[in-house]
């Protein structure tokens, strides 16, 4: 789904492009606790940038720094070229959608949405027109007179979205925007969000702990861990080329092996892993000292199960099927290797032929393409 948006130019690859948000060495401390640690970040106009990380990783704090609710302990934030130091939230060209939605309980839906426009001292007719317009976009036109407590969770979420969009901000901050919704509604609203973002051309910065949400929504993802940004990239880059063991492990599921570099050439590397019988051959080079210790990551869906012993000398191993979880579109196998190590393998269920299905305790050979494994140090 991220594919649809890569057609648009990728400003982060252009060294001369002007970043819309520039976060420079921002650190935020609460007492002795460092919530955000020396973070630098560039977000470009029209992007949907996701800050992804577990709870307590500092992603919400960083968002609140952008909104102006927290002042950074050090470092600076520029939005549209303007230094945000000392500028209060009510003077920033930024709107935020709160995780709890923070709808005003004593105002109707229309009252909530109109609030921001009233602060701009617009004419009543202008306000009414724009409120009506945005409520139509989020499909809440009929609910204008309801109070928040008379709405469902999904409707409240859309009121919060309408309220933050009605001021036509250049930058919209979303804190776990879909967190409170059930699965069906989440998927639906995700695409609604994308549609609205494309229609209005707003830059989104989204905070989420849900990688699926980050993958589907974002043009780029910043993975955060312990107050630091550990990797920034497109969803595809983050998934296929994790820069560190943490990212590989955090995004999706992965089989991680410890190994030692035995061959390190320009066009390939060979890694010896105790837990896999054969060496791992990777078709891209890396530069590391000889015999360095490294890790190898192979995604479950990139491993192929077979009954025949592969002819190649590397990139395969042998084991028995320990556990099977049938998911409908695919099946998850836990395969116990000869070394005792358990490996996760997913196969898509392409046919209904019984002879193609693997059963418990069956001997299988696991193999993968030389382009699949990711090798990294540290």
């Amino acid at each position: 789904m991220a594919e649809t948006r890569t057609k648009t130019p990728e400003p982060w690859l252009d060294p001369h492009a002007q970043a819309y948000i520039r976060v420079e060495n921002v650190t935020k401390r609460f007492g002795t606790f460092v919530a955000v640690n020396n973070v630098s970040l560039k977000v470009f106009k029209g992007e949907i940038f996701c800050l992804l990380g577990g709870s307590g990783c500092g992603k919400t704090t960083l968002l609140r720094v952008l909104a102006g609710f927290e002042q950074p302990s050090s470092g600076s934030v520029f939005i549209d070229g303007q230094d945000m130091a000392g500028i209060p939230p009510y003077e920033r060209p930024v709107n935020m959608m709160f995780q709890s939605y923070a709808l005003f309980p004593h105002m109707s839906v229309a009252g909530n949405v109109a609030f921001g426009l009233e602060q701009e001292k617009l004419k009543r007719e202008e306000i009414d027109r724009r409120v009506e317009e945005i409520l139509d976009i989020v499909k809440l036109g009929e609910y204008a007179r309801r109070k928040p407590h008379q709405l469902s969770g999904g409707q409240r979420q859309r009121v919060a979205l309408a309220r933050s969009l009605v001021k036509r901000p250049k930058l919209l901050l979303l804190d776990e925007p879909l967190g409170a919704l059930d699965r069906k509604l989440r998927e639906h609203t995700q695409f609604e969000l994308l549609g609205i973002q494309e229609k209005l051309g707003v830059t989104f910065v989204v905070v989420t702990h849900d990688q699926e949400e980050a993958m589907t929504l974002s043009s780029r993802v910043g993975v955060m861990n312990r107050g630091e940004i550990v990797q920034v990239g497109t969803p595809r880059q983050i998934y296929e080329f994790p820069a560190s063991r943490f990212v590989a492990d955090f995004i999706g599921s992965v089989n991680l092996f410890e190994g030692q570099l035995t061959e390190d050439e320009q066009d390939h590397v060979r890694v010896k892993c105790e837990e896999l019988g054969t060496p791992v051959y990777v078709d891209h080079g890396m530069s590391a000292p000889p015999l360095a210790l490294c890790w190898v990551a192979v995604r479950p869906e990139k491993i192929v199960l077979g009954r025949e012993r592969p002819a190649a000398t590397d990139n395969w191993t042998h084991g028995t099927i320990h556990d099977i979880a049938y998911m409908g579109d695919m099946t998850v196998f836990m395969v116990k290797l000869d070394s005792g190590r358990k490996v996760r393998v997913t196969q898509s269920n392409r046919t209904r032929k019984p002879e193609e299905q693997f059963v418990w305790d069956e001997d299988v050979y696991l193999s993968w393409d030389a382009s699949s494994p990711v090798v990294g140090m540290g």
Partner: protein
Amino acid sequence: MSARNGKRTPGSLLTRPWEPLWQLFHRLRPARWSAYVRDHWIGKPLVTAVPMIWLVLFFMVPFIIVFGISFSQSILAIPPYESLWGWVDDKVLTLRLHLGNYNYLFTDTLYVSSYLYSVKVAAVSTLFCLLLGYPMAYGIARSPPTQRNIFLMLIILPFWTSFLLRVYAWIGLLKSNGVINNILMWLGLIDQPITMMQTDFAVYIGIVYSYLPFMILPLYSNLEKHDRTLLEAAADLGARPWKAFMRITLPLSMPGIVAGSLLVFIPAVGEYVIPSLLGRTDQLMIGRVLSDEFFENRDWPVASAVAIAMLVLLVVPIMVFQRYQNRELAHK
């Protein structure tokens, strides 16, 4: 369990004679006693009966007695009023209601002016309590949780001393050769002592001082529950702090304002001690009139009529309060 399921073999009545009874008991036994009490008729009436009996005994019955006396006539006897019931020719039971007492309240200007004065004093005092109490309650609600209890303790602390003593203490502060006048004269700010005793000013000071906690506590309990992200949302949408307060905090604290205002206004209307000790002698408040009518004039019927009229006067604000409470309940 097994007895209940009937799985256990009945055995013989000779070896287990209690078995049929045991099974019957299990069949009739409610699964959980608490659920039984909740679901059946004994629970709810029992719980509501206690306050109901209390209200009937100590509110309804005295009210009906006073209401009855207000239709009677004053006589020299013990008790000093005529019975409403009487026998005509020893045969016909008659009920005699004198509406004259109520009529009298309107003919003598003393009563109307006392009522109006009481309402005015109570209203002004309530306003001052609100103006003083709101920032205090707001400050306490916004202070760190560890400090809040200390502040609340300080608000309640004066109750450790008798209310009467604290009002007497104000006499020492306010009188012509009292603490305030002496300090001001010593500083050279005034040559002549300012007359503060027996003025409206002294009554306002007394009432505001005494009733301030009743304003602060309900306001605090309301403000403390406010969701702070609402103010962040308002700021995010471009509202300056003062605007956010006026549009978000103030409307959301209305139930607290109403509760606090009624808790001050209602007792202040009928206040007796404070105006008697600090207030004017040429203009009485209705509480004082009521007491004089009972104890000085010994005219119980008129005193009862005054009391009933005062009650009617206070029922309006109580009903406003009830409406707000119901509306708040409906929100939850």
